[in-house]
Protein backbone atom coordinates (compact mmCIF):
# COMPACT_ATOMS: atom_id res chain seq x y z
CA UNK A 1 0.00 0.00 0.00
CA UNK A 2 1.23 3.44 -0.84
CA UNK A 3 1.27 6.40 1.49
CA UNK A 4 -1.63 8.41 0.08
CA UNK A 5 -4.76 6.27 0.39
CA UNK A 6 -6.35 8.40 3.10
CA UNK A 7 -5.26 11.71 1.65
CA UNK A 8 -6.81 10.64 -1.64
CA UNK A 9 -10.09 9.57 -0.07
CA UNK A 10 -12.04 11.30 -2.84
CA UNK A 11 -10.33 9.21 -5.49
CA UNK A 12 -10.82 6.10 -3.37
CA UNK A 13 -14.56 6.77 -3.25
CA UNK A 14 -14.49 7.30 -7.02
CA UNK A 15 -12.75 3.95 -7.51
CA UNK A 16 -15.28 2.14 -5.32
CA UNK A 17 -18.17 3.80 -7.16
CA UNK A 18 -16.58 2.87 -10.47
CA UNK A 19 -16.45 -0.77 -9.44
CA UNK A 20 -20.05 -0.68 -8.20
CA UNK A 21 -21.15 0.67 -11.55
CA UNK A 22 -19.00 -1.86 -13.35
CA UNK A 23 -20.50 -4.75 -11.37
CA UNK A 24 -23.99 -3.46 -12.06
CA UNK A 25 -23.28 -3.32 -15.75
CA UNK A 26 -22.00 -6.90 -15.70
CA UNK A 27 -24.40 -8.61 -13.33
CA UNK A 28 -27.79 -6.93 -13.48
CA UNK A 29 -30.19 -8.65 -15.82
CA UNK A 30 -32.57 -5.71 -15.92
CA UNK A 31 -31.61 -3.36 -18.72
CA UNK A 32 -32.62 -0.19 -16.88
CA UNK A 33 -30.46 -1.18 -13.93
CA UNK A 34 -27.61 -1.82 -16.31
CA UNK A 35 -27.98 1.72 -17.63
CA UNK A 36 -27.99 3.06 -14.07
CA UNK A 37 -24.77 1.12 -13.49
CA UNK A 38 -23.29 2.73 -16.57
CA UNK A 39 -24.18 6.19 -15.31
CA UNK A 40 -22.68 5.47 -11.89
CA UNK A 41 -19.49 4.36 -13.62
CA UNK A 42 -19.27 7.53 -15.70
CA UNK A 43 -20.00 9.79 -12.74
CA UNK A 44 -17.29 8.05 -10.74
CA UNK A 45 -14.76 8.94 -13.42
CA UNK A 46 -15.88 12.57 -13.37
CA UNK A 47 -15.53 12.62 -9.59
CA UNK A 48 -12.02 11.25 -10.01
CA UNK A 49 -11.17 13.95 -12.54
CA UNK A 50 -12.66 16.72 -10.43
CA UNK A 51 -10.53 15.56 -7.49
CA UNK A 52 -7.46 15.68 -9.70
CA UNK A 53 -8.00 19.34 -10.51
CA UNK A 54 -8.60 20.45 -6.94
CA UNK A 55 -5.97 22.45 -5.06
CA UNK A 56 -6.74 23.43 -1.47
CA UNK A 57 -7.49 27.10 -0.91
CA UNK A 58 -7.68 28.17 -4.52
CA UNK A 59 -10.60 29.62 -6.47
CA UNK A 60 -12.54 28.32 -9.45
CA UNK A 61 -10.79 29.11 -12.74
CA UNK A 62 -12.73 32.25 -13.61
CA UNK A 63 -10.60 35.38 -13.62
CA UNK A 64 -11.73 37.71 -10.84
CA UNK A 65 -10.44 41.24 -10.27
CA UNK A 66 -7.93 40.82 -13.07
CA UNK A 67 -5.73 38.41 -11.09
CA UNK A 68 -4.07 36.09 -13.61
CA UNK A 69 -1.52 34.38 -11.45
CA UNK A 70 -1.33 30.61 -11.62
CA UNK A 71 -1.24 30.52 -7.81
CA UNK A 72 -4.77 31.88 -7.53
CA UNK A 73 -6.82 29.26 -9.35
CA UNK A 74 -7.26 25.51 -9.49
CA UNK A 75 -6.24 23.48 -12.51
CA UNK A 76 -8.76 24.13 -15.32
CA UNK A 77 -7.95 21.08 -17.47
CA UNK A 78 -9.82 18.36 -15.52
CA UNK A 79 -12.90 20.60 -15.41
CA UNK A 80 -12.83 20.87 -19.18
CA UNK A 81 -12.41 17.12 -19.57
CA UNK A 82 -15.38 16.51 -17.28
CA UNK A 83 -17.50 18.86 -19.42
CA UNK A 84 -16.65 16.90 -22.52
CA UNK A 85 -17.19 13.60 -20.76
CA UNK A 86 -20.66 14.54 -19.54
CA UNK A 87 -21.87 15.14 -23.07
CA UNK A 88 -20.60 11.74 -24.13
CA UNK A 89 -22.36 10.11 -21.20
CA UNK A 90 -25.66 11.86 -21.99
CA UNK A 91 -25.50 10.66 -25.59
CA UNK A 92 -24.74 7.09 -24.64
CA UNK A 93 -27.55 7.02 -22.07
CA UNK A 94 -30.04 8.28 -24.64
CA UNK A 95 -28.97 5.60 -27.09
CA UNK A 96 -29.18 2.82 -24.50
CA UNK A 97 -32.60 3.98 -23.31
CA UNK A 98 -34.03 4.02 -26.81
CA UNK A 99 -32.68 0.54 -27.46
CA UNK A 100 -34.38 -0.55 -24.24
CA UNK A 101 -37.68 1.00 -25.32
CA UNK A 102 -37.59 -0.91 -28.59
CA UNK A 103 -36.80 -4.21 -26.92
CA UNK A 104 -39.43 -3.73 -24.22
CA UNK A 105 -42.17 -2.84 -26.68
CA UNK A 106 -41.44 -5.95 -28.65
CA UNK A 107 -40.68 -8.55 -26.02
CA UNK A 108 -42.47 -7.18 -22.93
CA UNK A 109 -39.52 -7.79 -20.72
CA UNK A 110 -36.40 -5.96 -19.63
CA UNK A 111 -34.43 -9.09 -18.96
CA UNK A 112 -31.75 -9.53 -21.57
CA UNK A 113 -31.53 -13.30 -21.07
CA UNK A 114 -35.24 -13.76 -21.60
CA UNK A 115 -35.05 -11.65 -24.73
CA UNK A 116 -32.23 -13.83 -25.98
CA UNK A 117 -34.31 -16.94 -25.27
CA UNK A 118 -37.30 -15.55 -27.16
CA UNK A 119 -35.03 -14.71 -30.08
CA UNK A 120 -33.70 -18.26 -30.09
CA UNK A 121 -37.27 -19.48 -30.21
CA UNK A 122 -38.16 -17.18 -33.07
CA UNK A 123 -35.26 -18.83 -34.81
CA UNK A 124 -34.61 -15.96 -37.16
Amino acid sequence: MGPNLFVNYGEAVAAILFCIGFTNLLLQTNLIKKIIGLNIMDSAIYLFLAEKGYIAGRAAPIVTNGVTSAEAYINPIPSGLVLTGIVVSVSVSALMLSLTIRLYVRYHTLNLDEIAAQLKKEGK
Partner: protein
Amino acid sequence: MDFICNFPFFSILLSLFSGTICSILPGKAAKIVNRVVIITVGILSGILLVYLLDSGESFVYWMGHFPAPWGNEIRAGVLEAGMALFFCIIMYLSMAGGAHKLFDEVEESKHNLYYILINLLLSSLLALVYTNDMFTAYVFVEINTISACGLIMIRQVGRTIEAAVRYMIMSLLGSGLLLFGLCIMYDLTGHLLMSNIKESVSLLIQNGEYQIPLIVSIALMCVGLCIKSALFPFHAWLPDAYGYSTVSSAAILSSLVSKGYIFLLIKIIYRVIGFDIFNSTRIIDVLFVFGLMGMIFGSLSAIKEGDIRRMIAFSSVAQIGYIYMGFGMGTQAGMVASVFHILSHAATKSLLFIAAIGLTEVSGGSRKFIDLTGAGYRNKWAGVAFTAGSLSMVGVPLFSGFISKLLFAQAAVQVEGKMLAALIVLGISTVLNAIYFMKTVIRIYTAAGDTPYPCITFKDMKVHAVVLILFVILNVLLGVSSQPIVNMIEQGLAMFA
Protein backbone atom coordinates in the same frame (compact mmCIF):
# COMPACT_ATOMS: atom_id res chain seq x y z
CA MET B 1 4.96 23.85 -44.41
CA ASP B 2 3.72 22.33 -47.64
CA PHE B 3 0.09 22.54 -48.56
CA ILE B 4 -0.09 18.74 -48.58
CA CYS B 5 0.39 18.77 -44.81
CA ASN B 6 -3.18 20.06 -44.56
CA PHE B 7 -4.55 16.85 -46.04
CA PRO B 8 -5.10 14.85 -42.84
CA PHE B 9 -6.98 17.78 -41.40
CA PHE B 10 -9.02 18.15 -44.60
CA SER B 11 -9.90 14.46 -44.59
CA ILE B 12 -11.18 14.47 -41.01
CA LEU B 13 -13.14 17.71 -41.35
CA LEU B 14 -14.54 16.77 -44.76
CA SER B 15 -16.00 13.51 -43.55
CA LEU B 16 -17.26 15.12 -40.32
CA PHE B 17 -18.92 17.95 -42.22
CA SER B 18 -20.43 15.65 -44.83
CA GLY B 19 -22.21 13.86 -41.98
CA THR B 20 -23.95 17.10 -41.09
CA ILE B 21 -24.80 17.79 -44.73
CA CYS B 22 -26.35 14.35 -45.19
CA SER B 23 -28.83 15.12 -42.40
CA ILE B 24 -30.76 17.45 -44.72
CA LEU B 25 -30.41 15.46 -47.93
CA PRO B 26 -32.69 12.71 -49.22
CA GLY B 27 -31.29 9.18 -49.34
CA LYS B 28 -30.05 9.18 -52.93
CA ALA B 29 -28.19 12.49 -52.68
CA ALA B 30 -26.72 11.39 -49.37
CA LYS B 31 -25.42 8.26 -51.06
CA ILE B 32 -23.67 10.33 -53.73
CA VAL B 33 -22.17 12.63 -51.09
CA ASN B 34 -20.98 9.60 -49.17
CA ARG B 35 -19.30 8.01 -52.18
CA VAL B 36 -17.68 11.29 -53.23
CA VAL B 37 -16.36 11.87 -49.72
CA ILE B 38 -14.86 8.40 -49.45
CA ILE B 39 -13.18 8.74 -52.85
CA THR B 40 -11.90 12.24 -52.07
CA VAL B 41 -10.48 11.18 -48.73
CA GLY B 42 -8.90 8.18 -50.40
CA ILE B 43 -7.23 10.37 -53.02
CA LEU B 44 -6.03 12.85 -50.40
CA SER B 45 -4.56 10.01 -48.33
CA GLY B 46 -2.92 8.52 -51.42
CA ILE B 47 -1.23 11.83 -52.30
CA LEU B 48 -0.18 12.23 -48.69
CA LEU B 49 1.30 8.72 -48.67
CA VAL B 50 3.36 9.43 -51.76
CA TYR B 51 4.52 12.73 -50.28
CA LEU B 52 5.51 11.09 -47.00
CA LEU B 53 7.33 8.21 -48.69
CA ASP B 54 9.19 10.81 -50.68
CA SER B 55 10.10 13.04 -47.74
CA GLY B 56 10.68 10.17 -45.32
CA GLU B 57 9.65 12.23 -42.30
CA SER B 58 6.46 12.45 -40.31
CA PHE B 59 4.98 15.81 -39.36
CA VAL B 60 2.68 17.23 -36.72
CA TYR B 61 -0.12 19.61 -37.52
CA TRP B 62 -1.47 22.13 -35.00
CA MET B 63 -5.20 22.05 -34.50
CA GLY B 64 -5.41 25.70 -33.52
CA HIS B 65 -3.05 28.56 -32.80
CA PHE B 66 -1.05 27.02 -29.99
CA PRO B 67 2.07 24.82 -29.98
CA ALA B 68 2.54 21.38 -28.52
CA PRO B 69 1.83 21.04 -24.83
CA TRP B 70 -1.00 23.61 -24.95
CA GLY B 71 -2.83 23.08 -28.18
CA ASN B 72 -4.26 20.04 -29.86
CA GLU B 73 -2.38 18.20 -32.59
CA ILE B 74 -2.69 15.63 -35.27
CA ARG B 75 0.24 13.75 -36.70
CA ALA B 76 0.84 12.00 -39.99
CA GLY B 77 3.43 9.42 -40.96
CA VAL B 78 3.65 6.70 -43.59
CA LEU B 79 1.68 4.17 -41.57
CA GLU B 80 -1.14 6.62 -40.81
CA ALA B 81 -1.53 7.74 -44.40
CA GLY B 82 -1.36 4.16 -45.63
CA MET B 83 -4.00 3.06 -43.14
CA ALA B 84 -6.28 5.94 -44.11
CA LEU B 85 -5.95 5.05 -47.79
CA PHE B 86 -6.59 1.38 -47.09
CA PHE B 87 -9.62 2.11 -44.88
CA CYS B 88 -11.11 4.25 -47.66
CA ILE B 89 -10.66 1.50 -50.26
CA ILE B 90 -12.26 -1.16 -48.06
CA MET B 91 -15.08 1.15 -47.04
CA TYR B 92 -15.87 2.12 -50.62
CA LEU B 93 -15.90 -1.48 -51.83
CA SER B 94 -18.01 -2.65 -48.88
CA MET B 95 -20.54 0.11 -49.43
CA ALA B 96 -20.76 -0.60 -53.16
CA GLY B 97 -20.97 -4.35 -52.68
CA GLY B 98 -23.80 -4.20 -50.15
CA ALA B 99 -25.77 -1.33 -51.67
CA HIS B 100 -28.46 -3.56 -53.19
CA LYS B 101 -29.21 -5.24 -49.87
CA LEU B 102 -29.64 -1.88 -48.19
CA PHE B 103 -32.97 -1.39 -49.93
CA ASP B 104 -34.40 -4.63 -48.59
CA GLU B 105 -33.16 -4.27 -45.08
CA VAL B 106 -33.32 -0.58 -44.21
CA GLU B 107 -36.36 1.64 -44.32
CA GLU B 108 -36.12 3.94 -47.28
CA SER B 109 -36.81 7.09 -45.25
CA LYS B 110 -33.84 6.27 -43.07
CA HIS B 111 -31.26 5.78 -45.80
CA ASN B 112 -29.77 9.23 -45.32
CA LEU B 113 -29.29 8.44 -41.63
CA TYR B 114 -27.31 5.37 -42.68
CA TYR B 115 -24.97 7.52 -44.73
CA ILE B 116 -24.58 9.99 -41.85
CA LEU B 117 -23.41 7.10 -39.71
CA ILE B 118 -20.97 5.95 -42.38
CA ASN B 119 -19.53 9.44 -42.80
CA LEU B 120 -19.09 9.94 -39.09
CA LEU B 121 -17.58 6.48 -38.77
CA LEU B 122 -15.07 7.35 -41.45
CA SER B 123 -14.18 10.62 -39.76
CA SER B 124 -13.76 8.94 -36.40
CA LEU B 125 -11.55 6.24 -37.93
CA LEU B 126 -9.43 8.93 -39.57
CA ALA B 127 -9.22 10.85 -36.31
CA LEU B 128 -8.16 7.70 -34.45
CA VAL B 129 -5.53 7.09 -37.07
CA TYR B 130 -4.15 10.63 -37.16
CA THR B 131 -4.65 11.98 -33.66
CA ASN B 132 -1.74 12.83 -31.41
CA ASP B 133 -3.83 13.50 -28.33
CA MET B 134 -5.18 10.93 -25.92
CA PHE B 135 -8.38 12.71 -24.97
CA THR B 136 -9.27 13.43 -28.58
CA ALA B 137 -8.76 9.74 -29.18
CA TYR B 138 -11.23 8.96 -26.39
CA VAL B 139 -13.87 11.31 -27.83
CA PHE B 140 -13.54 9.81 -31.30
CA VAL B 141 -13.57 6.29 -29.88
CA GLU B 142 -17.02 7.16 -28.57
CA ILE B 143 -18.17 8.47 -31.96
CA ASN B 144 -16.87 5.27 -33.48
CA THR B 145 -18.73 3.12 -30.94
CA ILE B 146 -22.05 4.91 -31.26
CA SER B 147 -22.03 4.95 -35.03
CA ALA B 148 -21.01 1.29 -35.14
CA CYS B 149 -23.95 0.52 -32.86
CA GLY B 150 -26.16 2.47 -35.27
CA LEU B 151 -24.86 0.42 -38.17
CA ILE B 152 -25.72 -2.80 -36.35
CA MET B 153 -29.25 -1.89 -35.36
CA ILE B 154 -30.36 0.02 -38.46
CA ARG B 155 -31.77 -3.25 -39.80
CA GLN B 156 -34.42 -3.13 -37.13
CA VAL B 157 -35.14 -6.77 -36.38
CA GLY B 158 -35.07 -8.24 -32.90
CA ARG B 159 -31.71 -9.92 -33.34
CA THR B 160 -29.86 -6.83 -34.39
CA ILE B 161 -31.32 -4.68 -31.64
CA GLU B 162 -30.37 -7.26 -29.05
CA ALA B 163 -26.91 -7.54 -30.61
CA ALA B 164 -26.62 -3.75 -30.47
CA VAL B 165 -27.44 -3.77 -26.75
CA ARG B 166 -24.80 -6.40 -26.08
CA TYR B 167 -22.31 -4.53 -28.22
CA MET B 168 -22.99 -1.28 -26.38
CA ILE B 169 -22.63 -2.89 -22.96
CA MET B 170 -19.26 -4.43 -23.78
CA SER B 171 -18.07 -1.28 -25.52
CA LEU B 172 -19.07 0.91 -22.62
CA LEU B 173 -17.16 -1.29 -20.20
CA GLY B 174 -14.21 -0.86 -22.51
CA SER B 175 -14.62 2.91 -22.77
CA GLY B 176 -14.91 3.21 -19.01
CA LEU B 177 -11.66 1.34 -18.46
CA LEU B 178 -9.94 3.30 -21.22
CA LEU B 179 -11.03 6.61 -19.72
CA PHE B 180 -9.99 5.58 -16.22
CA GLY B 181 -6.57 4.53 -17.47
CA LEU B 182 -6.30 7.80 -19.33
CA CYS B 183 -7.12 9.82 -16.20
CA ILE B 184 -4.48 8.00 -14.15
CA MET B 185 -1.96 8.57 -16.91
CA TYR B 186 -2.87 12.25 -16.98
CA ASP B 187 -2.46 12.47 -13.23
CA LEU B 188 1.03 10.98 -13.42
CA THR B 189 2.31 13.00 -16.36
CA GLY B 190 0.22 16.16 -16.49
CA HIS B 191 -0.09 15.94 -20.26
CA LEU B 192 -2.65 14.75 -22.76
CA LEU B 193 -0.59 14.93 -25.94
CA MET B 194 1.02 11.64 -26.85
CA SER B 195 4.54 12.92 -27.45
CA ASN B 196 4.58 14.84 -24.15
CA ILE B 197 3.22 11.89 -22.21
CA LYS B 198 5.97 9.72 -23.67
CA GLU B 199 8.69 12.12 -22.50
CA SER B 200 7.23 12.19 -19.01
CA VAL B 201 6.80 8.42 -18.91
CA SER B 202 10.42 7.76 -19.83
CA LEU B 203 11.49 10.26 -17.14
CA LEU B 204 9.29 8.51 -14.58
CA ILE B 205 10.75 5.14 -15.52
CA GLN B 206 14.29 6.51 -15.24
CA ASN B 207 13.64 7.99 -11.82
CA GLY B 208 11.71 4.93 -10.68
CA GLU B 209 8.70 7.00 -9.61
CA TYR B 210 5.05 5.91 -9.64
CA GLN B 211 5.84 2.46 -11.03
CA ILE B 212 2.65 0.76 -9.88
CA PRO B 213 0.15 3.41 -11.07
CA LEU B 214 1.95 3.57 -14.39
CA ILE B 215 1.63 -0.16 -15.01
CA VAL B 216 -2.01 -0.16 -13.88
CA SER B 217 -2.82 2.74 -16.18
CA ILE B 218 -1.23 0.98 -19.16
CA ALA B 219 -3.07 -2.22 -18.28
CA LEU B 220 -6.44 -0.46 -17.99
CA MET B 221 -6.02 1.20 -21.39
CA CYS B 222 -4.99 -2.10 -23.00
CA VAL B 223 -7.87 -4.05 -21.47
CA GLY B 224 -10.32 -1.34 -22.51
CA LEU B 225 -9.20 -1.46 -26.12
CA CYS B 226 -9.07 -5.28 -26.12
CA ILE B 227 -12.68 -5.42 -24.96
CA LYS B 228 -13.68 -2.96 -27.66
CA SER B 229 -11.91 -4.90 -30.40
CA ALA B 230 -13.47 -8.24 -29.30
CA LEU B 231 -10.44 -10.15 -28.11
CA PHE B 232 -11.34 -13.72 -27.18
CA PRO B 233 -13.15 -13.75 -23.83
CA PHE B 234 -14.99 -10.52 -24.70
CA HIS B 235 -16.41 -11.60 -28.04
CA ALA B 236 -19.94 -12.64 -26.99
CA TRP B 237 -21.60 -9.77 -28.85
CA LEU B 238 -19.75 -10.33 -32.09
CA PRO B 239 -21.50 -13.21 -33.92
CA ASP B 240 -24.95 -11.68 -33.69
CA ALA B 241 -23.72 -8.20 -34.52
CA TYR B 242 -21.82 -9.32 -37.61
CA GLY B 243 -24.17 -12.13 -38.51
CA TYR B 244 -27.47 -10.31 -38.73
CA SER B 245 -26.72 -6.67 -39.55
CA THR B 246 -27.02 -5.53 -43.14
CA VAL B 247 -24.09 -6.76 -45.20
CA SER B 248 -22.26 -3.45 -45.73
CA SER B 249 -22.37 -2.91 -41.99
CA ALA B 250 -21.04 -6.37 -41.28
CA ALA B 251 -18.16 -5.92 -43.72
CA ILE B 252 -17.29 -2.47 -42.37
CA LEU B 253 -17.60 -3.51 -38.73
CA SER B 254 -15.43 -6.57 -39.03
CA SER B 255 -12.77 -5.07 -41.22
CA LEU B 256 -12.59 -1.44 -40.07
CA VAL B 257 -14.17 -0.67 -36.69
CA SER B 258 -12.25 -3.23 -34.64
CA LYS B 259 -9.10 -2.36 -36.59
CA GLY B 260 -9.48 1.29 -35.65
CA TYR B 261 -9.24 0.35 -31.96
CA ILE B 262 -6.32 -1.96 -32.61
CA PHE B 263 -4.52 0.77 -34.51
CA LEU B 264 -5.11 3.13 -31.58
CA LEU B 265 -3.58 0.50 -29.30
CA ILE B 266 -0.52 0.33 -31.55
CA LYS B 267 -0.26 4.11 -31.37
CA ILE B 268 -0.51 4.00 -27.61
CA ILE B 269 2.16 1.32 -27.41
CA TYR B 270 4.57 3.24 -29.60
CA ARG B 271 3.76 6.89 -29.05
CA VAL B 272 2.51 7.05 -25.48
CA ILE B 273 4.28 4.34 -23.54
CA GLY B 274 7.25 3.50 -25.71
CA PHE B 275 7.78 0.13 -27.31
CA ASP B 276 10.59 -1.01 -25.00
CA ILE B 277 8.83 0.03 -21.82
CA PHE B 278 5.68 -1.74 -22.95
CA ASN B 279 7.61 -4.91 -23.71
CA SER B 280 9.24 -4.90 -20.30
CA THR B 281 5.84 -5.24 -18.61
CA ARG B 282 3.99 -8.52 -18.10
CA ILE B 283 1.08 -7.19 -20.13
CA ILE B 284 2.43 -8.59 -23.38
CA ASP B 285 2.39 -12.11 -21.95
CA VAL B 286 -1.28 -11.73 -21.09
CA LEU B 287 -2.03 -10.43 -24.59
CA PHE B 288 -0.06 -13.35 -26.03
CA VAL B 289 -2.02 -15.96 -24.06
CA PHE B 290 -5.41 -14.46 -24.84
CA GLY B 291 -4.42 -14.13 -28.49
CA LEU B 292 -3.57 -17.84 -28.65
CA MET B 293 -6.80 -18.79 -26.89
CA GLY B 294 -8.76 -16.64 -29.29
CA MET B 295 -7.14 -18.35 -32.26
CA ILE B 296 -8.22 -21.79 -31.03
CA PHE B 297 -11.63 -21.10 -29.52
CA GLY B 298 -12.76 -18.75 -32.28
CA SER B 299 -12.06 -21.42 -34.86
CA LEU B 300 -13.74 -24.14 -32.78
CA SER B 301 -16.90 -22.05 -32.47
CA ALA B 302 -16.79 -21.42 -36.21
CA ILE B 303 -16.64 -25.15 -36.92
CA LYS B 304 -19.73 -25.77 -34.79
CA GLU B 305 -21.71 -23.01 -36.47
CA GLY B 306 -24.39 -23.93 -38.99
CA ASP B 307 -24.96 -20.45 -40.36
CA ILE B 308 -22.53 -19.12 -42.94
CA ARG B 309 -22.46 -15.52 -41.77
CA ARG B 310 -22.09 -16.39 -38.12
CA MET B 311 -19.29 -18.74 -39.12
CA ILE B 312 -17.44 -15.88 -40.83
CA ALA B 313 -18.06 -13.75 -37.75
CA PHE B 314 -16.52 -16.37 -35.46
CA SER B 315 -13.56 -16.58 -37.77
CA SER B 316 -13.00 -12.86 -37.00
CA VAL B 317 -12.49 -13.77 -33.35
CA ALA B 318 -9.70 -16.12 -34.39
CA GLN B 319 -8.10 -13.55 -36.67
CA ILE B 320 -8.13 -10.89 -33.95
CA GLY B 321 -6.39 -13.47 -31.81
CA TYR B 322 -3.59 -13.59 -34.42
CA ILE B 323 -3.16 -9.83 -34.22
CA TYR B 324 -2.88 -9.82 -30.43
CA MET B 325 -0.50 -12.77 -30.56
CA GLY B 326 1.74 -10.58 -32.72
CA PHE B 327 1.60 -7.82 -30.08
CA GLY B 328 2.36 -10.39 -27.43
CA MET B 329 5.62 -11.45 -29.03
CA GLY B 330 7.08 -8.10 -28.10
CA THR B 331 9.37 -7.78 -31.08
CA GLN B 332 9.45 -5.46 -34.02
CA ALA B 333 8.87 -8.40 -36.37
CA GLY B 334 5.77 -9.48 -34.43
CA MET B 335 4.39 -5.96 -34.65
CA VAL B 336 5.01 -5.80 -38.41
CA ALA B 337 3.24 -9.12 -38.82
CA SER B 338 0.28 -7.83 -36.79
CA VAL B 339 -0.02 -4.67 -38.85
CA PHE B 340 0.17 -6.69 -42.05
CA HIS B 341 -2.48 -9.01 -40.69
CA ILE B 342 -4.72 -6.01 -40.00
CA LEU B 343 -4.54 -5.19 -43.71
CA SER B 344 -4.90 -8.76 -44.91
CA HIS B 345 -7.76 -9.58 -42.57
CA ALA B 346 -9.63 -6.40 -43.48
CA ALA B 347 -9.34 -7.19 -47.19
CA THR B 348 -10.32 -10.84 -46.80
CA LYS B 349 -13.11 -10.58 -44.25
CA SER B 350 -15.06 -7.95 -46.12
CA LEU B 351 -14.62 -10.02 -49.29
CA LEU B 352 -16.08 -13.05 -47.50
CA PHE B 353 -19.07 -11.15 -46.16
CA ILE B 354 -19.88 -9.63 -49.53
CA ALA B 355 -19.43 -12.97 -51.33
CA ALA B 356 -21.53 -14.80 -48.73
CA ILE B 357 -24.43 -12.47 -49.40
CA GLY B 358 -24.19 -13.35 -53.10
CA LEU B 359 -24.38 -17.04 -52.20
CA THR B 360 -27.33 -16.72 -49.83
CA GLU B 361 -29.25 -14.69 -52.39
CA VAL B 362 -29.29 -17.62 -54.81
CA SER B 363 -30.37 -19.96 -52.00
CA GLY B 364 -33.67 -18.32 -51.24
CA GLY B 365 -32.17 -16.04 -48.62
CA SER B 366 -31.33 -18.93 -46.34
CA ARG B 367 -27.95 -18.97 -44.66
CA LYS B 368 -28.00 -22.59 -43.53
CA PHE B 369 -25.35 -24.80 -45.06
CA ILE B 370 -27.92 -27.32 -46.28
CA ASP B 371 -29.55 -24.73 -48.50
CA LEU B 372 -26.25 -23.45 -49.80
CA THR B 373 -25.51 -26.72 -51.61
CA GLY B 374 -24.46 -25.90 -55.14
CA ALA B 375 -24.71 -22.16 -54.67
CA GLY B 376 -21.30 -21.76 -56.26
CA TYR B 377 -22.74 -22.95 -59.57
CA ARG B 378 -25.78 -20.73 -59.35
CA ASN B 379 -23.77 -17.60 -58.65
CA LYS B 380 -20.39 -18.19 -60.22
CA TRP B 381 -18.76 -14.88 -59.33
CA ALA B 382 -19.68 -15.06 -55.69
CA GLY B 383 -18.57 -18.69 -55.57
CA VAL B 384 -15.15 -17.91 -57.03
CA ALA B 385 -14.71 -14.91 -54.77
CA PHE B 386 -15.72 -16.89 -51.69
CA THR B 387 -13.24 -19.60 -52.61
CA ALA B 388 -10.49 -17.04 -53.07
CA GLY B 389 -11.29 -15.50 -49.69
CA SER B 390 -11.31 -18.90 -48.02
CA LEU B 391 -7.96 -19.82 -49.54
CA SER B 392 -6.55 -16.56 -48.30
CA MET B 393 -7.89 -17.19 -44.78
CA VAL B 394 -6.41 -20.68 -44.75
CA GLY B 395 -3.09 -19.32 -45.92
CA VAL B 396 -2.53 -20.61 -49.42
CA PRO B 397 0.36 -18.95 -51.29
CA LEU B 398 -0.45 -16.11 -53.69
CA PHE B 399 -3.04 -14.74 -51.28
CA SER B 400 -2.53 -12.22 -48.49
CA GLY B 401 -3.27 -14.66 -45.67
CA PHE B 402 -0.20 -16.71 -46.59
CA ILE B 403 2.10 -13.73 -46.17
CA SER B 404 0.72 -12.81 -42.78
CA LYS B 405 1.05 -16.38 -41.52
CA LEU B 406 4.58 -16.47 -42.88
CA LEU B 407 5.42 -13.22 -41.11
CA PHE B 408 3.93 -14.50 -37.86
CA ALA B 409 5.94 -17.69 -38.11
CA GLN B 410 9.15 -15.79 -38.86
CA ALA B 411 8.49 -13.47 -35.94
CA ALA B 412 7.81 -16.40 -33.63
CA VAL B 413 11.11 -18.06 -34.48
CA GLN B 414 12.98 -15.03 -33.18
CA VAL B 415 11.32 -15.09 -29.77
CA GLU B 416 12.66 -17.54 -27.28
CA GLY B 417 10.17 -19.02 -24.88
CA LYS B 418 7.15 -18.16 -26.96
CA MET B 419 8.30 -19.80 -30.16
CA LEU B 420 6.98 -23.26 -29.51
CA ALA B 421 3.55 -22.18 -28.29
CA ALA B 422 3.12 -19.71 -31.13
CA LEU B 423 4.12 -22.15 -33.84
CA ILE B 424 2.00 -25.00 -32.49
CA VAL B 425 -1.09 -22.83 -32.14
CA LEU B 426 -0.46 -21.29 -35.55
CA GLY B 427 -0.43 -24.78 -37.02
CA ILE B 428 -3.56 -25.95 -35.17
CA SER B 429 -5.40 -22.79 -36.08
CA THR B 430 -4.49 -23.17 -39.74
CA VAL B 431 -5.86 -26.71 -39.75
CA LEU B 432 -9.05 -25.58 -38.04
CA ASN B 433 -9.41 -22.70 -40.50
CA ALA B 434 -8.99 -25.14 -43.34
CA ILE B 435 -11.65 -27.44 -41.87
CA TYR B 436 -14.44 -24.92 -41.75
CA PHE B 437 -13.60 -22.86 -44.80
CA MET B 438 -12.97 -25.87 -47.02
CA LYS B 439 -16.14 -27.48 -45.71
CA THR B 440 -18.02 -24.44 -46.96
CA VAL B 441 -16.24 -24.34 -50.29
CA ILE B 442 -16.93 -28.03 -50.89
CA ARG B 443 -20.54 -27.49 -49.90
CA ILE B 444 -21.08 -24.67 -52.36
CA TYR B 445 -19.52 -26.70 -55.16
CA THR B 446 -21.48 -29.88 -54.50
CA ALA B 447 -23.93 -30.49 -57.30
CA ALA B 448 -27.36 -30.00 -55.82
CA GLY B 449 -29.49 -32.01 -58.23
CA ASP B 450 -32.55 -29.96 -59.01
CA THR B 451 -33.01 -26.86 -56.90
CA PRO B 452 -35.84 -24.40 -57.10
CA TYR B 453 -33.44 -21.48 -57.01
CA PRO B 454 -32.48 -19.70 -60.24
CA CYS B 455 -28.97 -19.08 -61.49
CA ILE B 456 -27.60 -15.56 -61.57
CA THR B 457 -25.44 -14.31 -64.40
CA PHE B 458 -23.02 -11.42 -64.58
CA LYS B 459 -25.71 -9.16 -66.04
CA ASP B 460 -27.90 -9.41 -62.97
CA MET B 461 -25.22 -8.37 -60.54
CA LYS B 462 -22.76 -6.16 -62.35
CA VAL B 463 -21.77 -3.94 -59.42
CA HIS B 464 -21.59 -6.82 -57.02
CA ALA B 465 -19.41 -8.88 -59.35
CA VAL B 466 -17.07 -5.98 -60.08
CA VAL B 467 -16.70 -5.33 -56.36
CA LEU B 468 -15.90 -8.98 -55.75
CA ILE B 469 -13.31 -8.98 -58.52
CA LEU B 470 -11.69 -5.86 -57.09
CA PHE B 471 -11.59 -7.45 -53.63
CA VAL B 472 -9.91 -10.56 -55.02
CA ILE B 473 -7.39 -8.39 -56.88
CA LEU B 474 -6.67 -6.48 -53.68
CA ASN B 475 -6.08 -9.75 -51.87
CA VAL B 476 -3.76 -11.07 -54.54
CA LEU B 477 -1.91 -7.76 -54.65
CA LEU B 478 -1.33 -7.91 -50.91
CA GLY B 479 -0.16 -11.49 -51.32
CA VAL B 480 2.10 -11.08 -54.33
CA SER B 481 3.69 -7.69 -53.78
CA SER B 482 4.01 -8.01 -50.04
CA GLN B 483 7.62 -6.86 -49.78
CA PRO B 484 7.03 -3.15 -50.55
CA ILE B 485 4.09 -3.14 -48.16
CA VAL B 486 6.12 -4.76 -45.39
CA ASN B 487 8.87 -2.21 -46.00
CA MET B 488 6.31 0.55 -45.78
CA ILE B 489 4.99 -0.80 -42.48
CA GLU B 490 8.52 -1.01 -41.09
CA GLN B 491 9.21 2.56 -42.20
CA GLY B 492 5.93 3.71 -40.64
CA LEU B 493 6.63 1.99 -37.34
CA ALA B 494 10.09 3.53 -37.31
CA MET B 495 8.47 6.94 -37.74
CA PHE B 496 6.30 6.30 -34.71
CA ALA B 497 9.20 6.29 -32.33
